[in-house]
C-alpha cells in the first residue's frame, strides 16, 4: 500500500517542515493554535510511520523502503534511506514518543511555546533520519544536527543550572562524534564510498579496525551513555524540561545502541571481538555500580537518569556478549547469541516506554509542586490515587516485574549471559534486586506514608490529558511485556543476518 511512496522521506521531512511552519507562526496569537498544529503533525507522522510496520517484510534482512538519490556527487555522498528490523521499531518508538511529549508540554510551557514545539518536531524528523540513513555522512549530518534543538531545549526551558548542563551535553557528544567523522573519512579513503553497507563489506586490517572501533566507541559510548562517560546525562536530565528528558532517555540514548549495531560491530567485527571484554566490563560496571549510585539519589530525576544508565548497560552487554557465547566451550551449539541481541533490542524499546513514563510521572509532580526532591513528598497516594496506581505500575516495570516489558529484555540478556559466563549473568541479575530497591524505595517515600506537608495535601489528581498519556504508555508497556512476538518477528531476520555477518572475520 505504501511501497510506491517515499515513506521514509515523508516521515522525516513532514515533522521538520511542520516544525518550521510552527516556528514561523510565532507566539503572537493564541498558543493553542500552534499546540494543535504540532499535535496534528506529530500524530500524522506517527500514523504514517505505522505504514512501515504494515508493509514490512519480516522474512528478509535486506534494507526496505530504500530511497537512493545522489546528493553530493563530488564525494559520492547519497541521499540514502532504508530500514531493517533494527531501525524500524526505533522509528515507530520515536514518532510515538513525540506525540506524548507534545501533550506533556501542553499547558505547562508558557515561554515561547512555538519554539518549544518546533524544537521537538524538528528533532523528531532528525532522529527518524538518523535511524534510517544508510549513507555514513548523511547519518552524521542528522546525528549532529539533532544536538542543536536539544541544546536549545535544555538551555531555554531548563532548570536552575541549565546552561552548564546543556553546554556539557553538547560538548560531550560533539567530542565523541568528531572522532567518528575522522574514522568515516578514513574508510572513504580506503574503500571509496560513504555507503554504510559497503563499509560493512570493507576489508580492514586489525590495526585499522581497532582505531576505527575506538573512534566509534567514543561517539556511541557517550551517547548510550556508558560508564565512565555518563556524567553528562544526570546533569542534562535534571535540568531539561520534562519533554526534553523524555526524548533524551527514550530516543537519544537508543541512538548510541543503534550505532553499535549499525556501525561498530559490522564494520569492525574483529576489533569488537578482541575488545569485547572492555565493553562487557563497562556495561557491568554500569549495571552494578550505577545501580548503587541511583540508590542514594535525593532528586527523583537524577535517580531515574542513573537507572537509565544502568538499564542501557544491558543493551551493550547483550550486544557484546555474543562473541563470548560463541567461544564458550560448554555451549557447543552456539545458541543464545540471537537471544542476546534480540534481548538488547527489546530492552531498548522497552526502556523507551518505561523511562519516558518515569520522566513524565516526575513531570506531573513537578508541574504541581515545582520540586523534584524526594524529601519534599510523602503520602501522595492519599491525594492522587489514580496517579499513584500508574506510578506503582511503572516503577514495577522499571524494576523488571514479569509481565511488563522491562522484564522481557533484561531476562533475555541475562539468560544469554549464562551461556557465556556464569558471573556475567550473576552480576547482571543484580539489577533485578538493585532496580527494585531504588525504584520501589523512591515510590515508597514519595507516595506512601503520612501526607508530608500542605503542598501534598493540596495536590489534584491527573487531568484527562495526563491520564491519556499515562494510560497509553501503560498499555504499551503491558503489551510489549505480555506479547513481545510482533517486535521479535520484525527483528528476527535482521538479527540472524547481523550475527552471520559479525561471525565472519574481516582479516
Amino acid at each position, binding site marked *: 500500500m505504501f511501497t510506491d511512496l517515499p515513506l521514509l522521506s515523508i516521515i522525516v521531512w513532514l515533522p521538520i517542515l511542520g516544525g518550521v511552519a510552527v516556528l514561523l507562526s510565532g507566539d503572537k496569537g493564541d498558543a493553542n493554535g500552534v499546540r494543535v498544529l504540532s499535535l496534528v503533525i506529530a500524530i500524522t507522522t506517527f500514523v504514517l510511520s505505522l505504514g512501515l510496520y504494515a508493509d514490512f517484510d519480516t522474512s528478509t534482512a535486506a534494507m526496505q523502503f530504500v530511497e537512493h538519490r545522489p546528493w553530493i556527487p563530488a564525494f559520492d555522498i547519497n541521499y540514502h534511506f532504508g530500514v531493517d528490523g533494527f531501525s524500524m521499531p526505533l522509528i515507530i518508538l520515536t514518532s510515538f514518543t513525540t506525540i506524548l511529549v507534545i501533550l506533556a508540554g501542553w499547558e505547562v510551557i508558557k515561554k515561547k511555546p512555538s519554539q518549544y514545539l518546533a524544537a521537538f518536531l524538528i528533532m523528531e524528523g532528525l532522529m527518524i533520519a538518523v535511524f534510517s540513513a544508510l549513507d555514513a555522512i548523511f547519518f552524521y549530518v542528522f546525528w549532529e544536527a539533532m544536538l542543536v534543538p536539544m*541544546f536549545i531545549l535544555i538551555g531555554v526551558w531548563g532548570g536552575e543550572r541549565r546552561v552548564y548542563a546543556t553546554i556539557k551535553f553538547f560538548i560531550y557528544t560533539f567530542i565523541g562524534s568528531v572522532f567518528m567523522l575522522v574514522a568515516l573519512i578514513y574508510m572513504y579513503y580506503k574503500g571509496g564510498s560513504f555507503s554504510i553497507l559497503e563499509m560493512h563489506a570493507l576489508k580492514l586490517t586489525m590495526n585499522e579496525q581497532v582505531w576505527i572501533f575506538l573512534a566509534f566507541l567514543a561517539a556511541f559510548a557517550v551517547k548510550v551513555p556508558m560508564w565512565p562517560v555518563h556524567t553528562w546525562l544526570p546533569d542534562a536530565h535534571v535540568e531539561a524540561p520534562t519533554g526534553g528528558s523524555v526524548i533524551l532517555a527514550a530516543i537519544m540514548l537508543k541512538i548510541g545502541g543503534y550505532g553499535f549495531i549499525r556501525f561498530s560491530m559490522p564494520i569492525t567485527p574483529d576489533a569488537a571481538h578482541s575488545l569485547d571484554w572492555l565493553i562487557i566490563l563497562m556495561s557491568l560496571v554500569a549495571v552494578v555500580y550505577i545501580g548503587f549510585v541511583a540508590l542514594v539519589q535525593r532528586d527523583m530525576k537524577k535517580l531515574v537518569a542513573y537507572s537509565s544508565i544502568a538499564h542501557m548497560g544491558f543493551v551493550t552487554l547483550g550486544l557484546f556478549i555474543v562473541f563470548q557465547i560463541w567461544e564458550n566451550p560448554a555451549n557447543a551449539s552456539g545458541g543464545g547469541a540471537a537471544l542476546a541481541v534480540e534481548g538488547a533490542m527489546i530492552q531498548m524499546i522497552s526502556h523507551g516506554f518505561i523511562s519516558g513514563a518515569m520522566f513524565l510521572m516526575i513531570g506531573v509532580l513537578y508541574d504541581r509542586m515545582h520540586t523534584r526532591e524526594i524529601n519534599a513528598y510523602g503520602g501522595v497516594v492519599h491525594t492522587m490515587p489514580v496517579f499513584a496506581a500508574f506510578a506503582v505500575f511503572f516503577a514495577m516495570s522499571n524494576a523488571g516485574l514479569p509481565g511488563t516489558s522491562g522484564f522481557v529484555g533484561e531476562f533475555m540478556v541475562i539468560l544469554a549471559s549464562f551461556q557465556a559466563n556464569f558471573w556475567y549473568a550473576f552480576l547482571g541479575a543484580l539489577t533485578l534486586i538493585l532496580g527494585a530497591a531504588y525504584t520501589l524505595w523512591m515510590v515508597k517515600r514519595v507516595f506512601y506514608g503520612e501526607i508530608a506537608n500542605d503542598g501534598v495535601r493540596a495536590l489534584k489528581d491527573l487531568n484527562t490529558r495526563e491520564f491519556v498519556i499515562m494510560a497509553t504508555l501503560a498499555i504499551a508497556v503491558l503489551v510489549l511485556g505480555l506479547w513481545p512476538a510482533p517486535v521479535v518477528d520484525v527483528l528476527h531476520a535482521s538479527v540472524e543476518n547481523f550475527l552471520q555477518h559479525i561471525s565472519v572475520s574481516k582479516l
Partner: protein
Amino acid sequence: MTLESLNIAIALPEIFLLTMACLVLVVDVYLPQEKRNFTYVLTQLSLILTLVFILSNQGETRALAFNDLFVQDAMAATLKLFIVIISFGVFVYSREYLQARNIFKGEFYVLGLFSIVGMMLMVSANNLLMLYLGLELLSLCLYALVAFNRDDGNASEAAMKYFVLGAIASGMLLYGMSILYGLSGSLQLSEIAQAVSRAEGAQNIGMIFALVFIVVALAFKLGAVPFHMWMPDVYQGSPTAVTALIGTAPKLAGFAMIMRLMVEALGGLQADWQQMVIVLSVLSLAVGNVIAIAQTNLKRMLAYSTISHVGFILLGILAGTAEGYSSAMFYTISYALMSLGGFGIIMLMARQGFEADNIDDLKGLNQRSPWFAFIMMILMLSMAGVPPTVGFWAKLAVLTAVVDIDLVWMAIIAVFFSIIGIFYYLRVIKVMYFDDAVDTQPLECGRDMQIALSTNGLAILALGLYPAALMSLCVSVFS
C-alpha cells in the same frame, strides 16, 4: 605590439570597475552630504555591472592578456564572482552603520572600490609584479580605511599596527620575489615554474630561501600563527564596516595569491613548503581556537576564529592535490560568507553611540528578534562546523583531502581543536538564547539590510543542505 595582442577584452570587469571607482571619486566631490546616498547607489550599481561582466566573461579556456601579465581562468572567474558579491554585501550592511557615526563619506566607497580592483588583479595575476601591485593596491586602501574614523584613537592605533606590520610583510614578499627573479630571470609565473623544475644544487637552495620569505609574507597577509599579531587589534580597532571589508573578500584574494605563488610558480618545491605550511596550520588551529575562548569582545573573538579558519584553509592547501586545493577554495568561500554574516549581525545590533561588539551585547537577542538570533545561530554553528550548515562541508572536504594524502594525524589534530572551538561559538548561542536581554531597545534597520542579512544566513543553511553545486564548482576549477 598592437592593441589586439593586448587582449584587453578579458580584463573588462577590472577596467570597468576601475573607471567607475574614478567616476565615483569625482562625482562624490560635487555632492553635498545629504545627497551622499547617490555615491552609495552608484557604487553598488558599478558592483552589479561588474558582476554582469564577470559572468558574461566566463570562458572555459584560460586566456592571457597584457603581454601575459594578466590571466583569466576558472579559478579567477569564480573567486572574482564571490569577491564582488561579498563586497556588495559589506556595502549594504555598512550603510546605516556609517550614517549613524557621521562617517558616511565618499572615501569609504572610493577606497573600497579600489581595494576590490586590487583583489581582482591579485586573483588574475600571472606575473610577480602584477601580484605585488594588486596586493599593494588592496593593502594601501585598507590601511587608510582602518584609520578612516579619524577621531577614534583605537582605530588610529589599529591602522598604525596594520600599516607597519603590513609593510614589513610586503618587504618580505618583495625580497623573496627579487631572489626568485635573480635565479630564474623572469617575473612570469610559468617561467619561474620551469626554472624551479630545472634548479639543482645551490640554485635549489636559493629557491628555498626565496620560498621562506614568500611563505612568511603570505602567512602575514592571511594572519597565520605566528604572524597573526595584527589581526585581533585591527579587527577590534577598525569601525565594524571596515572590519567586515578586511575580514571577508580579501581572504579570497589571499587564497588566490597562495595558489598563484606557491602552486603555480613554486609547485616544484611542494615538498619543502608543505612542511612549513603544516607548522603554520597546526599553530593557527591551536592558537586561534584556544585564545578565542578568552575573548569578551565579539570582533576580537571573530579575529581569533579567523586565525583558526586560516589553519583549516592551509590544511587543504598543504595536501597539494587537486582535491586539497578545491577543498581549500570551498572553505575560503564559505568562510567569507559566514564572517560576512557575523559582521552583519554586529552592525545590525550597533546604533548611534553604541558599538555592540561585546559578546554580552548579544544577550537575549532571541527575545528582541527571534529571526536574527536564528540567523546568528546558523552562522555560529556553521563556523563551528556543525551540520547541516556549509561550514560542516567545508571542514569535511578539507579533512577528506588531508586523509587522502595519509596525514590522518593532521586530521585528528584539526578535529581536536575544532572541539575546543565549539565552546566559544556555543557561548554566543548561549548568550543569545539563554540569557535575558539587558538592552531592550528594539532593533531597527532598513529593509535592504534585513533582506541581505536574511539571505546571507539562509544561504549558509541552503548551501549546507545542498552543497553539491558549490562543491562541484570548486572541484571543476582544479580539474
